[in-house]
Structure formats: structure tokens, C-alpha cells
């Protein structure tokens, strides 16, 4: 066990956990930030995507000991009232079916749009290829990303 001070969603949080604990489980079990989802645990599905200093990262593969003073952003911190342009685009396109993958999709899309504010369809498809949606909402995700790009 070791103590870590994390900078998450603009606040400082302290946890006492095993250094190998992936951020996914620190967030879910210790900090009660359950928007970050567990899907595979092996960096294959993207359900656990968070931002570390603005870069999309698979939190299931990121031990807390590697986070240091980096800025951690989770779906809960994306906006105060759920009105980030990407979130609004998701609602407008009525993207979710079961909804389970969507916080990971939104986090991947948000980081991607920061780097590429005017993506082509093909760029969206490959940028989002690491996030599985078992319900098959890919077409609406694509529409929502394009929609958000216009409003960012």
C-alpha cells in the first residue's frame, strides 16, 4: 500500500492503494467515479478511456504509480452540467443503446477532436476503432463526432 495524491477533474484526491492498482479500479472502487467502465481489462475495448494531460489513455493498463502529478480527466469531469459539445452531440444524435461503452467513446472522441478538429469520416473511423460498441452504434458515433466538430 502507498499513498497517492491525484489531480482529477480539477480537484485533488488522496488514495491509499497498492502501487500496481490500475487507475480504472482506483477511480471505480476507491473514488466512486464509476463513469469509467470495465470491459476487458486488456486494452482492447476502450470502455475505460480517460485523459492523462489531455491524451486518451486506457485506464485499465495504467497503474496509479505511473500517474504522478499528471492531470487526470474522467467523463465526470468533462463538463459541469453535461453540456460539453461532444456530450451534447451524443444526446442530439441519440447515440446510446445500452450505453455502457459510451463514456469511453466520448473520452476517445474528445481527445481526438482536440488534435483533429476537422476530421474526415475515415479519420473518425480509425480514431474510434479502439472502442468497441457491442450494440453497434458506430454510425451514430460517427455522426455525433462530426456534429461535435462543428460546435467545438
Amino acid at each position, binding site marked *: 500500500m502507498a499513498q497517492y495524491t491525484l489531480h482529477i477533474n480539477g480537484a485533488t484526491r488522496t488514495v491509499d492503494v497498492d502501487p500496481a492498482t490500475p487507475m480504472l479500479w482506483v477511480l471505480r472502487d476507491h473514488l466512486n467515479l464509476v463513469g469509467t467502465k470495465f470491459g*476487458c481489462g486488456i486494452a*482492447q475495448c476502450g470502455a475505460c478511456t480517460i485523459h492523462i494531460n489531455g491524451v486518451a489513455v486506457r485506464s485499465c493498463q495504467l497503474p496509479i504509480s505511473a500517474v504522478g502529478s499528471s492531470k487526470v480527466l474522467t467523463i465526470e469531469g468533462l463538463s459541469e452540467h453535461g453540456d460539453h459539445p461532444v456530450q451534447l452531440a451524443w444526446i442530439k444524435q441519440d447515440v446510446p443503446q*445500452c450505453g455502457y461503452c459510451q*463514456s469511453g467513446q466520448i473520452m476517445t472522441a474528445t481527445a481526438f477532436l482536440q488534435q483533429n478538429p476537422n476530421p474526415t469520416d475515415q479519420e473518425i473511423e*480509425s480514431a474510434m476503432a479502439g472502442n468497441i460498441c457491442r450494440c453497434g452504434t*458506430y454510425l451514430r458515433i460517427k455522426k455525433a463526432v462530426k456534429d461535435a466538430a462543428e460546435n467545438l
Partner: protein
Amino acid sequence: MSKQKVDQGRRFFIKSSLLAGGGMMLAFPWLESCNFSPEQVKAMPKEWFEINGYLKIGENGLITIMSPNPEIGQNVKTSMPMLIAEELNCDWSDVIVEQAPLNSNKFFHQMAGGSTSISAAWTPLRKAGATACQMLITAAAAALEVPAEELNAELGFVHHQASGRKLGFGEVASAAALLEVPEEVTLKPINEFKIIGTSRKNVDSKKIVTGASLFGIDYKEEGMLYAGVIHPPAFGLKIKSFDASRALALPGIEAVFQFENYREGQAKGAFDISAHQTQIAVVGRSTWEVFQAKKLVEVTYEEAEEVINKMSFFGGRTLETRWPAGLENTADHKKAMNQAEAKAKVVRQDGNPDAQFNAADQVLERTYYAPYLAHNTLEPLNFFAEVTDESARFVGPIQLPEILEPALADRFGLPLDKVEIMMTRIGGGFGRKLYGHFMLEAGVISKTVGKPVKLVYTREDDMTAGAYRPSYQVTYRAAIKSNKATAIHVIAGGIPESPLAADRFPAGAFDHYKAESWTIDSNITTGAFRAPRSNFMASAEQSFLDELAEQIGKDPIAYRLELLERAASSPVGARNDYDAERYAGVLKLVKEKSGWDTPKPGVHRGVAAYFCHRSYVANVVDVVMENGRPVVDKVYAAIDCGVVINPDAAANLAEGGSVDGIGHALYSQLTFSQGKPDQDNFDAYRLIRHNEAPRDVEVHFVPSDIDPTGMGEPPFPPVMGALANALYKAEGRRLYKQPFTGPQV
């Protein structure tokens, strides 16, 4: 207008006896469970008045509608309340939807299976809305001192046209809550619908996009422990012994023990059946610590003996299944399937098919195969349980809470009313979460450690102890004489169930028809997977008809329509389970919308149509070749599911069904070596990804005034056939074996 007696619906409207003394304040648990925006908090009423089990109205006109059924992504949490709201004549923006707990006295048919939610709820839920509306009108009539007949309700107000006066639902709710439930109500004709048939956004959208706690896996309680299970790595193995000393040495680990899913002599239900009945539980203070500890438990296994399961099904049916001993292999399965065809039993025969085959100029015979599939709901299996000697409480993702409740009561020796089940939003079902063995497991673990527990499966646990889609094989034969198909012979089977629907098209369209069925026992556990059986037969049958049409020189749509015309005008046999005209209707619609008669250069097209879960779906799939590889450019879907409740959400389901069908047909399979699944996570088990999805899906619904039929499952099966037929056009190679990207020999 159709007068509807409130007869069978009657018991659902019994009001809480607590209301006898006047309007009461009800708890609103949802207030804690979500983050309201400031506008909403302002609008929270001080008091709620329960009008009937499905709805309560606040003094300020805000309305809470209980959504009775589990939400697995099929949109019922939005579309079922829409049925109530329609007849209530409220303003949809005044509605808050709350997930109802399992309560068989108040609600009925609380399940997500067989694409039945909307069709079963169609009349009762509209009645719930209509009776409530009538009670509000009656209360308003008393308040305004006018006859009820002079009043009408619209957008949350009761209007008195003659005097221009109106009262909000909130103003009359307390009086309405005290009234008797009316004996009779009038339901609106379809052309007066204002909510049904209009697109309404998912009521949980905001929570989903903000990461609010919503799913079973997100659920927590004070003092709860986390648990995982270890099951044998292979079907046909059982636990012999284990050593937990290394696991127990980890700081966060509280207990490691072996347990039985069932108590001695307990009757098993078909929906709590689990792959392995003896497992090891690991209990600790966090999910991660539990997952780590599981790897440190040293377990030895031995071969299990044969198991005979006597399982109870819906409606008291029982079924005996045999799980033979042994470690099974996919290669052996394939050999056994080929041998089993010879032992098939005739299920239906029309005319004299054998004579037609003897007299044929030519026989077209093709065999189709599909592998086992794992459901892979993105939310792995999990459940919260708190079980004591006195009571049991469960919270989590379950598609069949009604069926699991008695199984849990039986397991823990409790009366039914001591078992409480709260449904959460479900992160994907597809049939997997019908099988609630994981609730039993969570319950046993909780009772053993004497604490509330949340059980979480790893992806590997989830994928290797499935209720898999069975592996299937079917051979189709057609007798061809003078360039005309004169007889059809179908021989279908699977491990462990046959996918045959003997009374389904093309039965009824041929004078001479024979359908045969076979099965092979196995110890690999299987279950319902989105559109069970149809999810294979549609692809096989529609590929075969395509090849047959080509063989006799006919356009694939024209040939199907010709057969359906025959089935409609003079059907062969009396038991055909489909409506040939509705079937033809979706084909005609997809033909028109896809511009089938105007070929597009460079676009290779395939068509398919199928009927299942009481609905009809036809697809055209467009494939283009890019860099020498086929790409699905577009899917057209034409759907007849009766009245469409929430069109944009239904389109979403159809888009998802197309992606899902194409993905599974192209990429997915679960194979076995020595009883062990060869794939246990998404690195080896391939699911369709964003860059592999069709670039566009265009969905069209047949305008209809028929009562709604299934929508969750029907869009899934036919697209696989349309894909196979399009790929044939693109690459010149017929596809017989799923996954299509795998070897075809």
C-alpha cells in the same frame, strides 16, 4: 374508437392501500441516484400523488412514470413510458422515468426476452395511462362543477372548452389519487397519437454521457465486499482441490471458499443454469485485489462425470438435458454434425418430396455452418447481493427477474416475499443476462461471508463460462426440373439444439417440402442469443434461395416475391407461421428504397428477408471493392414491426442490428480445444469495430396500424444473408461457413 374493458388489466391498477387516508408523500429514490440540472431541481414537487402503480403526479404537474421492464439497450425505458404518456395526455417534457423494481403484484411481464416487451405492454400500459387520465378528468369535473363529458385533457391540463377554464394535472392529482379506478376506458385511435410514433430521446441520455452511476456494475453500498469466482477452465472439468494460502496472504483478501450454485436436491431452472455448479469464491475489499488474488489460488481439476439436468422452463414445462462427460473439440463437433444429419427426424412433410428429387434434372445441395458465439455484453456479468437467514436483496443486470425470484427463494429457503430484486440499466443483454446464475452465486457468497457483496466477472470469466449461441449446421436441397424448383428439403441441427423452424418460409411455398431435425448432446452450456436459431437460419436459407434463384435464372427479389405470392394465394399446409403478404411487403419496400432495379456501377448487391419475433425485415447490402478488398458501403433495411413507438430509437436498433449481424457473420467465433474455449478476451475473440462497420445504414418502416411486434431481435438475422449474397457478387465465391472471413472448406 375502441372501447376497452379494464379486465385483465384490472389487477395492475390496484392502488397502494397507504393512499386510503389521502394523498401521500412518496419516497423518491431517484433523487439520490442522478445529478439533476438546476432547472429540474427547481421543478421538484413537494408532494407526489400515486394515481396507479405506473405513475405518480406532483402538485406542480411533474409526472413520474415507472418503467417496468429491464432496459438492455432496446429502449423500453423510454418507449414503454411513452405508451402511458400517450393516453395520459401529458406533456412529455414533464415526465421523469424511474426504473421499477420487480413487483409481480403491481406490474406484469417484467422481462427482456423474445422481443416481447412492447407487444405485451401495448394494451395494458395504454390502459394505465387512460385510466389515470380519466381519474384526473373526474377530479377536475368535481372541482369545476361541470360534467366530466364537457372536459378534455391535453398536454398536462384538463380543459373546459365551454368556459375557457383549465386545471393542471398537478392541481387535481391529490383528488384523483383518491378515486376508484374506472371500470372502462376508451383508447385513442392511432391517428390521434401525439407521442407514439414520434421520436423521443433516450431518457437516460444525460446520465449516460455524464458517467452517472446507472449500471449494475456501478452499484455500491456501505460495507460491501467485492467477490469473484473461479470456475474450471474447460467444460467437462470439475474442481478437485485448491490451495488458497497465497491468495489469502494478500492484504485485501477476506475469504476464499468453494461453494455450490444449488443446494442439495434443488430443482434447477432453465434460467439459472450455470456451466459449472461447483466454484471457488474469492472475497476482498476491492475488485482489483480480488482479481489479483484469483490468479494466486492454486486449483487442481479432474474430469467431470455425465450430468442429467431436469430443468423447469416457462409455463411449468420441464426439459431433461444430458451433459455427457468428456472434453470436447470443435474439430470433433464438425465431424459429429456431418454424421448426425443421417439420423435426422422428419418434422414436417408436404406432398411427395422424395419423388420430386428422384425425378429431378438437377439437385442443388448446399451445407451451411455456424460456430458457437459468446454474447460478450460489454458490461461483464455482475450482481450485488445481501442475503441473510431472513431475507435476500439483489441489485443488478438481469433480463428475467420474474423467473429468477422463485429460484433465489428456493436456493435460500426463503418465502417469495423475502426476496427483493432491483433492476439496473443493463450494459448489453443479447440473451446472456437471461441466465441469472450469477445472482445465485452473489447470493451464496454474501450469505457465506455474512456481508453484502458485489460479484464481478472478469471478461475471461464471462467469455469462458457462457450460455453460448449453439453451433449449427443445415443442409438445403432443391429439386430442379425444367428450370423450376419443384421441392425443398431442409435438414437442420445443432449442438445441443436444432435451429429448425419447420413451418417458416419457404414452407408453404412449395407443394413438396420436407424438414428434418437433429441434435447432438454436449456439456458446453448454451442459451438464447439475439434472435435464437433465426440468427443462423436466416443467413443459410437466404443464401440458398439466392443461389437457387441464380441457378434457375431469376432475379433474387423477383424469385422470392414469386414464392411468397404462391404462399399467400394458395399456401401449402395449414401451419405456416408467417404472413406472406407482410413478408412480401418488406421485400417490395427494400427493392424500392434501394433502387434495386437500377444497378450502380461498382456496387455489388445482395438481398435477404426474414421473419422472426412476429416481425418482418428485408435487407439490401451494397459491397464495393477497395484496394482489392470488399467493403460494406451501405445497408438498406425495410421493417414491418407494426406500429412503431419511437421511430428514431427503432432505427438505432436496426442500425445496430445490421452492424451486429455483419460483425458476427464476418468475424466472430468461439472454438474449443479439450473442452477449453480458445478465445477468452477481445484480443482473440474478434468483434466488429468502428472502421469495419457499414458506412451507412438506411432504415425504412412499413407504415402500419397493426399492434406492435418485436423490434430488438428481428433486424439482426437477415443482414447476414444479404451480406453473403453481396460478397458473392463482389468476389464470385459463395459463403457457406461462418465466420465468412475464415476458411470455407
